[in-house]
C-alpha cells in the first residue's frame, strides 16, 4: 500500500487553543505551544511530529474555528 504523507497548516491567529485537535489526532502530530501565545493570548496548536502525519484531517474536522487546512500526497 502506498504511504500517505500529510501536512497540517494551522491559522495561528484564529486558533483558541481548545486542544480538541490534539486529542483527535490518531498519530499525535499536534501539540499546543508550551510557551508562545498568539495575539489573543492563547497557546496555539502546532504540528510537532510532522513526519507522522497521514493527512486524515481528523484535526481539521473537529476544529470548531476552522483554523486547520490539511494537505495530503501519496508517496511515489
Amino acid at each position, binding site marked *: 500500500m502506498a504511504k500517505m*504523507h*500529510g*501536512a497540517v*497548516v494551522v*491559522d495561528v491567529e*484564529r486558533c*483558541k*487553543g*481548545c*486542544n*480538541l485537535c490534539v*486529542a*483527535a489526532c490518531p498519530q499525535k502530530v499536534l501539540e499546543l505551544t508550551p510557551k508562545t501565545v498568539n495575539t489573543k493570548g*492563547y497557546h496555539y496548536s502546532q504540528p510537532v511530529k*510532522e513526519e507522522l502525519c497521514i*493527512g*486524515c*484531517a*481528523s484535526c*481539521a*474536522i*473537529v*476544529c*470548531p*474555528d*476552522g*483554523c*486547520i*487546512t*490539511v*494537505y*495530503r*500526497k501519496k*508517496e511515489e
Partner: protein
Amino acid sequence: MTREEIIKTGDVVYRKPELLNDTPMHYCPGCPHGVVHKLVAEVIDEMGMRDKTIAVSPVGCSVFAYRYIDVDWEEAAHGRAPALASAIKRLWPDRLVFTYQGDGDLACIGTAETIHALNRSENITIIFINNAIYGMTGGQMAPTTLLGQKTVTCPYGREVALHGYPLKIADIAAILPGTCYVTRQTVDTVPAIRKAKAAIRKAFDYSMQGKGSNLVEIVSTCNSGWKLSPEKSFEWMRENMVPFYPLGDLKDTGKE
C-alpha cells in the same frame, strides 16, 4: 518528502468552508457551535444554495451567527425564530429557510413558536443546539438541564420537586403529525460529525422538497458553563447527556 513539498503539490483534504468567513468567532474555545456552523456552511455549499438561503438567528450564544456564515440572515426576537422562518418560507417558497437556535431560545421562551411551527408542517429546518444550560448569560438552569446537574441557579443540583423535569423537545416534535424528520445527533468525534452533517443535509433536502418541518437536535456542550475543559465536557456529555437524550433518528417520514 518535506512539508513544503506536500503543501505545494499535494491535494487539499480539508479546508475551512468558503461560506464561513474570516471573522473571528466569539465563541469560547472548544465550543461545538463552531463545528455546527462549519457543517451548515458545507451543506449549503454542497447543495448549491449559496444565493438562495435565508437563515434566522436566535437570541443566545449563537446570536451573532449572521456574522460568520455568508448567507442572508434575519435576527428574530427571543424565541420567535420559527415564526419568522415560517413567514419567510411562505413568501419565498424556493428558498432554503432554516433557524439556528439554542435550548434557552427554543425550549424555553420559544416553546410555543417551535411546537406550532413544527406542527403546521412549515417547510423549514430547525437546528437546535442543546447544551443543557444558559451559556451566554453565565450558566443558569435551562429547561433541558439534567436532574442533579449543578448550575449557578441550582447549586445543589436540579430537583424534581423544585424545578420539574427536563424537557425533551425532539421527543415532543416526533409525535407531532406535522414533522417530517426529527433527529438527535452530536458533534464530539469525527464519525459523529459526519453523521450530523448527513442529518443536516437530509433535513435541508426534505424542507426543499416540501415534505414538512424538520428538527435536527445537536446534543452539545458548554465548557465554560459546565466549568470543564473542552475534552472533559465532551466526556461529561457522553456519560450524562447522551443516556438521557439518546442519539439517532426519532422520525423519518420523508423516505416514502
